[in-house]
């Protein structure tokens, strides 16, 4: 392959592939990420697609995008603004032009910019002029025509030919970043082993794109991003939903229990059920329930029977599961409820991200009904926190709600593969078969967990259920007993705090401003704080994964900063929670509810504004 003559090195770059939801942009982005990861770049990706499988062709609503951020140093977010935008049609340009950095590169399929398509996208005139893109590096490539020419001898039908447009575009991008084609070619050889002509067509389109970019010197100089200085070890790419599923599997293995998942398909959580359904090799029992309620109720039944039981869902599904979570609280059975948050309320924005289910997770049930709530903060740490959720559920005999979000669920990043031997053991408090009669609500004196007596064990026959009971399991309406049991259940959840790590601040231990976040926003907040620190500001980050209970040192950490600013993708739910829990402090807020993540710029601007106040 020809060498690129002029080359510059860059620290990082953001590329966004966008087209109609049928244009194969998700695959294109994934293949590009894989190549970058194998090259040794750190990266983070974000697929952004419409809820409709095939939204009306050529409309802005039907645009599907995939953003990749790769770097020579650590990458924490998929990036705010892109250096390169690939727009397969006018609608894709319309949806994404405002997210391209000034002077960035825009590649578009000029054959697809017909008057009809331009109008469909909502433009009146020439889109390039209308978007005011004169200062940009615009590459109008006749992609459709060129794949037709390149594949004219293949004897494929016109539709199949046009399906390789995305590979042509990918080839162009590979040239821009001087990447090898080999990994992508291998992918096609494997994927279409039984249809070699399709594999060949895609490879030809890919190479045609690469050479086309070279011929027109699409970008001069070519950009090179050296591999990132990442810790040594074995790596793989992983998305949040798969990491969540694997964390649960790892916990089941560590606890020596069978894993049961009862779930109902719902965007963006379905990937967890799908991954676990495929894991029959590890003995997973996956149950696709008739509804959300049956999802959690079958899981509760499996928990009663002695499995590590899980249900996965998204916001509206969590609402439907509320009553059964209450039953799990009352029956004191271990269960993990994974809520992959999406934009709400109601059906809301199914494919977009938000952090607005926090209060629902904490309080959305009848009665005094505390559960443990934890949140993952990157695609790969979904593994860690899913494992933690299961560990806490099993060892403390309590439901645990694990919050992730649509962004983590579908986003991918390289992950240093852990070894099972490095994960902690999980020891559920099984009842002693010799201690007869078994008292269902007798508790461990230290952490207040009750003991788990598994059906099938002789002598431990007992009854549990949603009615209030005495320690012996007798139904009881005695006022004092109810109050005692309410306090015991609350105390049990509070005691989990003793088994979680202290809050560690990112940055200096004291300063002018403590940025506070939780869950999936960590990468953005961390990058913003790093940049603010580099600019000389005394700013640190406190990012929460344990929401209920919270680490024991929170008040102490908060007290060391002049200002506390809570940044979250809702109207201020965590801020209000902190006001209730740690009322000695005042809190400022940065909020966004657009179905989109923060941009680093907006976090920084808000922080600087607060820092500049007198």
């Amino acid at each position, binding site marked *: 392959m020809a060498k690129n003559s002029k080359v510059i090195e860059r620290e990082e770059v953001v590329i966004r592939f966008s087209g109609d939801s049928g244009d194969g942009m998700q695959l294109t982005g994934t293949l590009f990420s*894989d190549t970058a*990861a*194998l090259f*040794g770049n750190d990266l983070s990706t974000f697929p952004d697609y419409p809820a409709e499988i095939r939204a009306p062709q050529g409309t802005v609503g039907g645009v599907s995008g995939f953003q990749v951020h790769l770097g020579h140093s650590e990458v924490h977010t998929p990036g705010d603004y892109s250096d390169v935008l690939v727009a397969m049609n006018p609608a894709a340009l319309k949806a994404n032009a405002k997210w391209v950095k000034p002077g960035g590169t825009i590649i578009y399929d000029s054959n697809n910019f017909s008057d009809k398509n331009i109008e469909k996208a909502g433009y009146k005139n020439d889109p390039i002029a209308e978007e005011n893109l004169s200062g940009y590096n615009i590459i109008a490539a006749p992609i459709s025509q060129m794949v037709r020419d390149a594949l004219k001898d293949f004897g494929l039908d016109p539709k199949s030919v046009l399906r390789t447009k995305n590979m042509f575009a990918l080839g162009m991008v590979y040239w821009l970043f001087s990447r090898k084609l080999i990994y992508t070619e291998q992918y096609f050889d494997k994927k279409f082993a039984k249809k070699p002509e399709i594999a060949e067509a895609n490879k030809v389109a890919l190479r045609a794109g690469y050479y086309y970019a070279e011929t027109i010197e699409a970008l001069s100089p070519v950009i090179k991003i050296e*591999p990132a200085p*990442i810790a*040594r*070890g*074995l*790596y*793989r*790419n992983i998305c949040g939903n798969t990491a969540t599923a*694997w964390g649960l*599997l*790892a916990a089941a*293995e560590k606890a020596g229990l069978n894993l*049961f998942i*009862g779930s109902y398909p719902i965007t963006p959580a379905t990937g967890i059920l799908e991954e676990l359904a495929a894991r*029959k*090799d*590890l*003995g997973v*029992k996956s*149950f696709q*329930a*008739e509804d959300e*309620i*049956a999802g959690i*109720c*079958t*899981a*509760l*039944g*499996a*928990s*009663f*029977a*002695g*499995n590590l*039981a899980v249900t996965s869902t998204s916001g509206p599904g969590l609402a439907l599961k509320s*009553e*059964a979570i*209450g*039953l799990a609280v009352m029956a004191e059975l271990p269960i993990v409820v994974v809520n992959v948050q999406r934009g709400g309320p109601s059906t809301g924005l199914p494919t977009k991200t938000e952090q607005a289910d926090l209060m629902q997770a904490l309080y959305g049930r009848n009665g005094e009904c505390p559960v443990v709530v934890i949140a993952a903060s990157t695609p790969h740490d979904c593994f860690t926190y899913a494992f933690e959720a299961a560990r806490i559920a099993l060892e403390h005999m309590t439901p645990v709600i694990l919050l992730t979000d649509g962004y983590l669920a579908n986003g991918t990043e390289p992950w240093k*593969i852990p070894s*099972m031997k490095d994960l902690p053991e999980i020891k559920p408090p099984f009842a002693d078969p010799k201690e007869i009669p078994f008292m269902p609500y007798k508790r461990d004196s230290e952490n207040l967990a009750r003991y788990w007596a598994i*059906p*099938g064990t*002789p*002598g*431990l*026959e*007992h*009854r*549990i*259920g*949603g*009615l209030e009971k005495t320690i012996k399991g*007798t*139904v009881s309406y005695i006022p004092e007993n109810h109050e005692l049991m309410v306090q015991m259940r609350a105390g049990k959840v509070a005691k989990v705090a003793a088994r979680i790590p202290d809050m560690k601040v990112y940055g200096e231990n004291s300063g002018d401003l403590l940025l506070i976040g939780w869950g999936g926003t960590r990468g953005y907040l961390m990058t913003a704080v790093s940049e603010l620190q580099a600019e000389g500001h005394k700013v640190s980050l406190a990012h929460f994964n344990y929401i209920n209970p919270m680490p024991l040192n929170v008040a102490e950490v908060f007290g060391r900063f002049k200002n506390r600013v809570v940044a979250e993708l809702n109207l201020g739910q965590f801020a209000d929670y902190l006001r209730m829990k740690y009322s000695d402090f005042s809190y400022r807020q940065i909020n966004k509810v657009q179905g989109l993540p923060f941009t680093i710029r907006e976090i920084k601007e808000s922080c600087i504004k607060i820092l500049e106040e007198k």
Partner: protein
Amino acid sequence: MEEPRTIKYTPKDFKSDQEVRWCPGCGDHAVLNSVQKALTELGIPKEKFAFISGIGCSSRFPYYMDTYGFHGIHGRAAAIATGVKTANPELSVWDITGDGDALAIGGNHFIHAIRRNIDINIILFNNEIYGLTKGQYSPTSNRGLMTKTSPFGTVEEPFSVGELVVGAKGKFFARTVDSNVTLSTQIYIEAARHKGTSVVEVLQNCVIFNDGIHEVVTGKDVREERTIILKHGEPMIFGKEHDKGLVLDGLKLRVVKLGEEGYNEKNILVHDAHEPNPGIQYMLANMKYPEYPVALGVIRSVDDHSYEADVENQIETIKKDATIKCMDDLLMSGSTWTID
């Protein structure tokens, strides 16, 4: 060495230390006795029984059984029981429910448990009323029934339990009367032995809010004339004098008198509970007084795949040829790369 455990039980072995709190005269007492009696006949160790219930008078049942028990939430017993059985197929799982619990709030779980044919035994106490909430009409209340929420009579068509079971592709349906302990015990034994979802409808009397609702067919003086106890392989004959039978007249069932119109024991329909085609069983399950006698006994009992067994088999088959045997294998699978 542990001594080998005896599995010879008496009904008393299944009684818990809890005081039974149903109303005096409630049909539930008799159901409890029949079930406890049936369990002694199954040869299953006590610790392998799990009784799961939803909400309603009947759903207090697990508290009175000295077995593993889980009193759930309204309508969800079938789902919870499905989870228990799928997690541990070795357990004998019983779902205790009522007409409101199973057919109104829990209708979805009820039909889907049946469709999957998971091996649980559902005992549906049908008293055609909401008892625990003190007297509102239920999905099995007859049109016109006056209750607290239908003071001028219901204008709703009731479900027929058997019809719903067949419609949901059910493989086992039986009907009994609460007070008939002998018949009930036999039916519970058959339900337990049937592999797949067994549904037993119990015509149960609510002595407070719907007293005597089944009396018109189950009353002592009339029951032999107004009910028919079906037995697999036996002719469908009923009546105090064993003088009436059922025949197929065109596409409908008809009650005939033996010795009239040329009918005798030989040309009366013979009950086939094992016939996969539910046509005649469906008609039998739907028979209503006064046109017909109400059918009791095991109406349909057909062997088929059961969900939990298929789940286990699939896992075993896949495990055999799997390259991923443990979590470390999975973590290292697919495309990985090394950073030096």
